[in-house]
Every structure is written in structure tokens, then in C-alpha cells.
């Protein structure tokens, strides 16, 4: 199908460069100059992808990005299941993010667990004019009254809070005191802060540091008996159960997972994390901050890992094991060997159906690089990728460990650019979000949502890879894509013929 297969890398690079020039032509000069810095063709051997990142989005271009509130409430804090997260401000932010991220958990919702609920201060005009602090205090009282088994409260600030000068820290402190030291966390994640979700992650990490860690006595004994094999999973949001299909592997190799951050996580797990011997970090982007802090303050090393696809899983299991003794190293080998037959069977079944297929990605967090190995395990090739809210350290990791020479790189891609890139490159699959899904499906291009796993998952771990492989197959090889063109209107497409 795709052009990339029959072309040499030189041709691919030339075509990609031409494509970048072409999309930039449509922008007004000022915007073109700014966007040019975010688009590039990867050159092998370079230490990063040669794009600027973590800069302001340009007004009016249809960025795919969200905001700091989305990064804090939607990503970091929202999944902590035994705390109540107040969307503080007008009703919309909490409404649109209500239960939309598939952070799976076990618990009695509304009684001791609150993830898939929408708690909001539903700001009205009078709250904007007179301030919302009194209302916030009353909300906390009402929460205590109606949800007595909540183990803590967070205040997730929406845009107006920082603009009207509310003092949510004072309210939180006062109420914490009133409720016997209850954990109440004010989070300054107003949506206008920063340039994307990313600052929201950072602010949320800092809030854990300041309002959870700084309240606990680091020398106090753990609630459980400590072992030398205690680790914490950091940066897994348990989307479709990802953290569970990861945890099971760590436990099988002999480690003990004392905390999940934050999918299916609890306040007790956050508080216990300083007791970990190693923090294993999946989503570097959203939780490197707290990992670094724990390293500095508590001396806990951290290690990035990648649980997408058998190659990266095995590499990661060995890397994690290298922090421990032979028992764990043997455990890692045992786990790899145990799942090898399953992986062989999955690859035998799906690789022949997917071999040589090309993929273009545009996602957030870790996925624009982390999933590349899983595609390669299936014989597929990622020909374009980019980050919604990545920083330069993400692009460094991408360049050094993941992408191939000539890959098209697009940071904070705009709707226009993405559509043009896909139209020209004609990949066999696009992996991005809900806002992109239907655009590309209309174009007849198979698509998988790579934020929510398109309501499937888990994709992490060995169990998850089987689902990943099946899902990619069913997207690409669905018979419907052969029917997108109206037969009596079908025009010969020379590029396609050349590529067959």
C-alpha cells in the first residue's frame, strides 16, 4: 500500500522535507516561521529529533493539546481512587473529563471510591465576583458529610481561580486542621498556565511533594513489613488495566509493588512510596518530576521502562532486575521464558497480516516513542511521529532509542498539517486521539486511538501485547476500508499502483 516501502531512505527524506515545505506555505509568514521549528525529518545519529518543543501553541491553528487542568485532574490526580477531586470553577472542565480516560480501578464508587464521578463547585457569576473560597470551604464540609469514607480531597483549579485571586491554599489548610490533619491538596493547575497538559503534570507532581510527602514522617515505619524487593510503579494510569498487566509481571519476577501512581492508586500508596527501593517509571513525561524528587530526598533510584511489545518488555524486565540481586535477575529470565510461547503464538498469528505496514503516530506522554517497539515486533514500521506536549528530553530519547532515519517528526502538530501529512504519506494506520480518529477514518485510513486504546486494552505487558496485536490487525485488515471508495467513482491513483 504505502509509498515508503518501495522508496530508499534518501527518497523518503526528500519527500518528507518537501512535505514540510508544502504545509508551511499555507501559513501566514509569522506562523510559518514558528511552525517550521516544530517539523523535521529525523537524521540518524543525531541526539534529538531536531525540533523545538514545549513552546506555546499558535492561536487559531487547531492544536490537539489540552491544558494544565487536564494534566493534573485528568492525568495525575484523577485516578487516585479514594480521594475526592473537586473540579474547582465552572462546570465544563469536570464535565468533559468525567470518566473519559478509562482509569480502571476496584472499589465501591460513591462510597469509598470516587474516580468516575464529577465533583464540581459549578461556579456562578457571583462566585467570580465575590470569590469562591467560602463556597470551597462549604463544599469540603458537604463532602465530609455525604462521603465520610473519602481519604482525602484535592482542589483542581480551573482558569478563573487564579484570575480572581482565590486563596485555595488557606482554605485547604484550615479545613485540614478542622478535619484532624486530613489530606487536602490545593492544586494550582489553572488551564491558562503553561503551554499544554505538561505543566499540569509538573504542578500536580509538586502538589504531591508539598501536600502529601511533606506531611509524612519519612522515618515512621511503613504500614507493612518492608522487603528489599519493594518497588513502586510510577506513571501508569491503568488505562484499560495497563498497570495491572504490568504489576503482574513485576510480582512474578519476585518484586513487590507497594504503590501504583496513579492508576488504581490510593493515598496510602502515595504515602508509602518513599519506602520503595526502586521507582519504575513508565510515563517519564508526567512523573519524572516526583521521581527525581524522591531520588534527591529519599535516595530512591528510578528506572525508566517500556512495557509495549515483547522486545521492549524483555529489555525492561532485565533493566529493572539489574537493580536487584540474582534472585530477581533469575525471576526476570523466568518471566521472559514463561511468556515466550504466548508471544511467539501472537506474532505467528498477527505478524504475517501486518508485516511491512506503516504507521503514523501523534500522541502524548511516552507513547510517540514507547509503542514503536511493539509495532516493530509485528513487522510494522513507524514512519512519522510526534508529541502533543513533549519536551526536548522526550525527543532525545526518541532519537537515540526509537525512530529510524528519515522519520517525519511533527511537534504539537496542527489539524491541517496532520491531515496533509497523512494524505501524502498514506500510512496503513494512524494512531492518535479521539479528535483525530474520525478525520482519518473519513479519508479511508485505518485508525486506533492511542490515548484510550480505543476503549480496548490493556496494551501494557505480555497480556496487553496480545490485545494490541489483535487490535492493530482488526483496524488495518477490516474489510470496510476496501469499500470506502464509491466503485463507480473510483479513479486510478498512480501513486498506489507504483507502490504495489
Amino acid at each position, binding site marked *: 500500500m504505502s509509498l515508503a516501502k518501495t522508496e530508499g531512505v534518501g527518497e523518503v527524506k526528500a519527500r518528507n522535507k518537501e512535505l514540510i515545505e508544502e504545509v508551511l506555505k499555507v501559513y501566514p509568514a509569522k506562523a510559518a516561521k514558528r511552525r517550521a521549528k516544530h517539523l523535521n525529518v529525523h537524521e540518524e545519529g543525531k541526539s534529538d529529533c531536531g525540533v523545538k518543543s514545549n513552546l506555546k501553541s499558535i492561536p487559531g491553528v487547531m492544536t490537539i493539546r489540552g491544558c494544565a487542568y487536564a494534566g493534573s485532574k485528568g492525568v495525575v490526580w484523577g485516578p487516585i481512587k479514594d480521594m475526592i477531586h473537586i473540579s474547582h470553577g465552572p*462546570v465544563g472542565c469536570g*464535565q468533559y473529563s468525567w470518566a473519559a480516560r478509562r482509569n480502571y480501578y476496584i472499589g465501591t464508587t460513591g462510597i469509598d471510591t470516587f474516580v468516575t464521578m464529577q465533583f464540581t463547585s459549578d461556579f456562578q457569576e457571583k462566585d467570580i465576583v465575590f470569590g469562591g473560597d467560602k463556597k470551597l470551604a462549604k463544599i469540603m464540609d458537604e463532602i465530609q458529610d455525604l462521603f465520610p*469514607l473519602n481519604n482525602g480531597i484535592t482542589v483542581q483549579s480551573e482558569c*478563573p481561580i487564579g484570575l480572581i485571586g482565590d486563596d485555595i491554599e488557606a482554605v485547604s489548610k484550615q479545613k485540614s486542621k478542622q478535619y484532624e490533619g486530613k489530606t487536602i491538596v490545593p492544586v494550582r493547575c489553572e*488551564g491558562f498556565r503553561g503551554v499544554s497538559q505538561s505543566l499540569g503534570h509538573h504542578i500536580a507532581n509538586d502538589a504531591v511533594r508539598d501536600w502529601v510527602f511533606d506531611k509524612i514522617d519519612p522515618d515512621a515505619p511503613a504500614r507493612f513489613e518492608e522487603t528489599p524487593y519493594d518497588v513502586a510503579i510510577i506513571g501508569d494510569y491503568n488505562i484499560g488495566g495497563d498497570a495491572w498487566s504490568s504489576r503482574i509481571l513485576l510480582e512474578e519476577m519476585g518484586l513487590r509493588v507497594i504503590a501504583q501512581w496513579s492508576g488504581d492508586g*490510593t493515598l496510602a500508596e502515595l504515602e508509602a512510596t518513599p519506602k520503595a527501593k526502586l521507582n519504575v517509571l513508565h510515563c517519564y513525561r508526567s512523573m519524572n518530576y516526583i521521581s527525581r524528587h524522591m531520588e534527591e530526598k529519599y535516595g530512591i533510584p528510578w528506572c525508566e521502562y517500556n512495557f509495549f511489545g515483547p522486545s521492549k518488555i524483555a529489555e525492561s524486565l532485565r533493566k529493572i532486575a539489574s537493580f536487584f540481586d540474582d534472585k530477581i535477575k533469575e525471576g526476570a529470565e523466568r518471566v521472559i521464558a514463561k511468556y515466550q510461547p504466548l508471544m511467539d503464538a501472537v506474532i505467528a498469528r498477527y505478524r504475517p497480516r501486518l508485516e511491512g505496514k506503516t504507521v503514523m503516530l501523534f500522541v502524548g506522554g511516552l507513547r510517540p516513542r514507547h509503542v514503536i517497539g511493539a509495532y516493530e515486533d509485528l513487522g510494522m514500521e513507524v514512519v512519522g511521529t510526534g508529541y502533543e506536549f513533549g519536551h526536548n528530553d522526550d525527543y532525545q530519547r526518541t532519537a537515540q532509542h526509537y525512530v529510524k532515519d528519515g522519520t517525519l517528526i511533527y511537534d504539537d502538530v496542527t489539524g491541517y498539517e496532520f491531515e496533509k501529512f497523512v494524505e501524502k504519506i498514506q500510512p496503513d494506520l494512524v494512531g492518535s486521539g479521539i479528535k483525530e480518529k474520525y478525520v482519518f477514518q473519513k479519508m479511508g485510513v485505518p485508525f486506533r486511538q492511542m490515548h484510550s486504546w480505543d476503549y480496548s*486494552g490493556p496494551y501494557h505487558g505480555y497480556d496487553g501485547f496480545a*490485545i494490541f496485536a489483535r487490535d492493530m490487525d482488526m483496524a488495518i485488515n477490516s474489510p470496510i476500508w476496501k469499500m470506502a471508495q464509491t466503485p463507480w467513482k473510483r479513479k486510478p491513483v498512480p501513486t498506489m499502483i507504483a507502490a504495489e
Partner: protein
Amino acid sequence: MTQNADNVLDHFELFRGPEYQQMLEAKKKMFENPHDPAEVERVREWAKTEEYKEKNFAREALTVNPAKACQPLGAVFAAVGFEGTIPFVHGSQGCVAYYRSHLSRHFKEPSSCVSSSMTEDAAVFGGLNNMVDGLANTYNLYKPKMIAVSTTCMAEVIGDDLNAFIKTAKEKESVPAEFDVPFAHTPAFVGSHVTGYDNALKGIIEHFWDGKAGTTEKLERKPNDTINFIGGFDGYTVGNMREIRRIFDLMGVEHTILCDNSDVFDTPTDGEFRMYDGGTTLEDAANAIHAKATISMQQYCTEKTLPVIKAHGQEVASFNHPVGVASTDAFLMEVARLTGKEIPEELARERGRLVDAIADSSAHIHGKKFAIYGDPDLCLGLAAFLLELGAEPTHILATNGTKGWAKQVQELLDSSPFGQDCHVYAGKDLWHMRSLLFTEPVDFLIGNTYGKYLERDTGTPLIRIGFPVFDRHHHHRRPVWGYQGSMNVLITILDKIFDEIDRNTNVPAKTDYSFDIIR
């Protein structure tokens, strides 16, 4: 190991295997610091009581699981009902990501919309530069025929002046001077998404009729025989608009649908992505001033728009999301009165078929109790239909309902013997509804997707009618207006009733004597 390459287990099954169950049980016990299960059970039971309900209804500050969204969502929905129009929301960019996702999750369609991407510096200095650059970029990239501007709460709190900003942007040649950039201030802390729809539509109408923000002459109304139709914020817009057009064509009514997003939310998959499709042409939007009258299908979506139209000399009429025989009769007779057109025999036959269907099925609905929540007009329309079916709309709740709305619902209830034991709840949320479903149970719940949590917790079967419906596909393609639309609503309700009867009568050798093949 539970996973299997030949029969890949999804999350539905995977985690129910013993390995995962043991792992999760151990996690809870060792690390989660859980409450005593007996205590959890006690609180769970307590939350079902009258005592809890009273506490719950005494809430003054906290909102839990509201059934409403914020203004700009409605503004975006309205904007895409016009030909070649891209909504431009001035303020923080995350909001736009949310509106687009929300609409895409409901319609399973692309939702195009841009933001002026304001950040901290704009919060301090105002968002003028964002407007100037943003309009230019949008205009060049997406080649719209019109850019409809609305606001997020951020821009509203800092007090950005859209009219002045757009003027300045035009002076700086972001877009040509004559290019249409209607605008509406849509603060999220006032009203809800239906208010945003109203404000945006009013903004567009005023733009075209009243001299385009002082840049051209105001239009002079030269009355003709057409009528304007406004649907309001409607999750069934795709099915409804087509049904309404069919009805008007049957009646021979010349009409303009103001804000018709039925095509843009239902584009074909044929190899081409259509960012714009269908919609009210800008010419029609302007010429709509000459119409004889304007009909709004949803009063609470057009509270500000209709007075503007009326002030231009048109007769206006509004309905409350009419569903059912009498409500559709009233709608059609009003159309007939306004246009002088006869209601054709074809529609009389459709009416007769709906009456026939209700007569056939009445025994299964009569006396059943329903809880309804949703937007104010939808609640009124469904409640009226249920009363007509001999059912009781026991709880009627709109988080975005006003006191005036509650009074209107009460009048409706008072008009029917089936409404005597029914109550209306304005400004309440789905956590209030949860208490009601425990303390004063009903047979069925009608609401949007979020109602599934109520269904799970209270055991009240959910009939999905409303917005958003994320977890069922293609409902938006079916009309719920007109006699045929009402028929769809009737069938949807009946299907759930019959499914429940079967579900409750299917235990072999226990209850299956009632597992009848004929109902």
C-alpha cells in the same frame, strides 16, 4: 496464564481470571489501607436512606455528577450549523480540546474548532494578539466562509472585548474587512450549554441582520412567506433536522433551518474528510430576516434569540422538544397556522400510525413510573409524552432548569391525572437523582450515558435518551421529533420494558413461566 493468542481476552475477561483477582485482592489488603468492608457496606446502605437523602438535598455548595455542560460547547455546536463555518473559541486552548472530544464521542464524527490559545501572558495583557494572529491563521489554514467567535471563562474573567478585538484584527488584516466574524460572549459561569447555543445563534443572527457590527447597513425586512426553524441544542440533530425538512417539504412550506448541523455531524466515509458540510448558507441566514415567522423547537435554547427575531417584526413560536401525539399535533398546527398550508394526508396517516402503535402497546407502559433527567426542553417533551402514554414521569430533573422551567413542568403535571404524584427538580444533579431512585423508586430511568452509573447503583433500568450518549452508537441518526420520531422514542422505551420483563422471567424452573413468546 490466562491470555491466549487464538482467543485474545479483552479487559472484560482478562482481569477476572484467578491470577489477577488474587493480585488485586492482595494489593488492596496490603497497600491500599482500605476501610473495613463492614463499614463500607454500612455506608453503602446508609446512602440509600431517607436520612441520607435529606442531607443530600440540603447541599448548598457542592455539585456531584451534574447533567449540564458549559456555554461554549453550545456555541461550538451552533456555529457548525452554518455553511463553511469554523468555531473559534477565544481563551484557554484546553477547553477547545474538551468540546471537540465531547462532540466527537457523541456523534462519532470529527469536530473542528480552533482556539486562540491564551496563556499566562494573555491573562495579564489581554488576548488581543491571540485574536489577531488566531483569526489570520484560521482564515489561511482552514479557508472558512465564516469564523464564529465565542469565549471561554478565562477570556470572560479578564474581560476581553470581542467586538473591539475583531475590529482591530480586521484593521490589521487578519481577515478581509468584509469577512463574516460573528461573535458571542459565552461565559461558562452563566447558564449552561443551552445558553451558549442561544448566545451564539443570537450573535450570528444579529451579525447578519443588524449591519455586521456596524460595518454595513442593517437589513431591511421585506416579509415573505418562508418560515425559519431553529432546533436548539440537540443530540439528535442529524435525524431530527432531516425529519423536519421532510415534514416541511410534505407540507410545501418554504423554510430556512437556522443552524443546520445535520450534515457536518454525519459526513460519509468515502476517502475525503469534509471539515465543512451542509449547514445554513450565509445568504439564507441573512435572508431569514424576511421570513414570516420563526419557530423554535426548544424554548430554553432560544430565550434570547427569539426576542431579537421578534423585534425585527416576525411572529415567533416556541415548543419544548415536542414528542408524542399532542405535542406534534400542536407543532404541525402551528406551522399550518403560520404558513396557511394544509397538513397533508400523509402526515395525518403518520399520526394515525403513531396512535395505532401506542394503542397496541399501551398496556405495557400504562402506570409505569419513570425518572427523567436532561436539558429543560427535553424533559418537558418526554414528560408530556409519558403522560400521554398513561405513564408517570415521577421525577423530572434538569441541572440547568430554572424556577420558571420548574413552574412550567408543574403546570404540565397538574394537567394530567398521571402527573399527580410526580415532582420536578430544578438545579439538582444526578447525585440527588440517586437518592430519589432509592427512596422513591421508579420502574425506568430516562437519561444520557451518565445514567448508567445510576442504573448500576440503584438497579433502575436506563433508557438512553439525551445528550451525550457515548456508549451506544448511532442513536443520533434517528429522529425523535415528528410522529415518526415519536415512534422511535416509543420503540426505544418499549424495547427496554420488554427486555426487563424477559430479564426478570428467565430463571429455568423458577420464573420462566412468564418468559412469554408473545407480548
